[in-house]
């Protein structure tokens, strides 16, 4: 078990587009343990959490940080893509956030939300959303 976390701010505001994703490496099936969303701007925003409909290709993906510095992590987080994620068929979670900086949600998955190798989990814009939303992920590899 290796736990890792990473927080990155979103940039994509477009409705019906991915805002951020976590992608599994080709060799592992990581478990998502926690996802946090927190508005950094006062723009009402609606998000969904679901599996990408395709296999996206991240641009400048950032590897999650090990919570134990002796571990090495492999899952990556991105806010831009060469091959953009497509809409999830269904969402595990959806939330509407009022337009006040600081509002947010923390979703936890005590047994882990499993990602298949090379698959991606999306934070999906279900409306025209804030240009700056803090999102963090905790994964168990």
């Amino acid at each position, binding site marked *: *078990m290796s*736990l890792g976390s*990473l*927080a990155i701010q979103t940039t994509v505001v477009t409705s019906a587009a991915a805002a951020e994703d976590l992608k599994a490496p080709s060799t592992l099936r990581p478990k998502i343990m926690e996802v946090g969303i*927190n508005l*950094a701007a006062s723009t009402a925003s609606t998000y969904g959490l679901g599996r990408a409909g395709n296999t996206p290709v991240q641009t400048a993906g950032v590897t999650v940080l090990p*919570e134990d*510095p002796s571990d090495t992590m492999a899952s990556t987080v991105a806010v831009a893509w060469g091959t953009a994620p497509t809409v999830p068929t269904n969402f595990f979670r959806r939330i509407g956030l009022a337009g006040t900086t600081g509002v947010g949600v923390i979703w936890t998955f005590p047994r882990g939300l499993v990602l298949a190798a090379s698959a991606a989990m999306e934070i999906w814009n279900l409306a025209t959303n804030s240009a700056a939303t803090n999102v*963090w992920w905790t994964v168990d590899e």
Partner: protein
Amino acid sequence: MPAVYSLGIGPTPVIGTDAVIADVKAWATGMTRLHKCSLNLGVSGGSDVLLGRSVAEHIQIGAQRLSTDDPSDDIYHSIATCAVAWSPIPVNPTTYFRRMSTGSNMAAQMTWVFPSGIIIPALGAILFGGVGTGAPNAKNNYVYWEVTE
């Protein structure tokens, strides 16, 4: 079972984007696990805050040990220490475990929980720091840390 220690500290004196706000540092003799931390605005003023590992070793000024949650523990205070002033000052990381933005209301806050514990190796530190180009990060925050050793 390891002993649980916690400490509330503040008000924090530092203000400014990219400034370090507070830290918890492991002692030279062993690692510490961070299980919970919280930041609470003691005054009104929006803040953009990160939680991450200090990039370089630093020296705390006025370091405080955390107190045991169970008075029957043999060791009353942690070997880890907390501070809100330093020389040299800790360096903010460029990637973070968490980041948040607060509204400008006094008492806006966040508590983060790490059930397995983020490991702080000997002489390492976890810090709250200012981040981003938004609102300046208010001073007079109240912070608490909970660790096991």
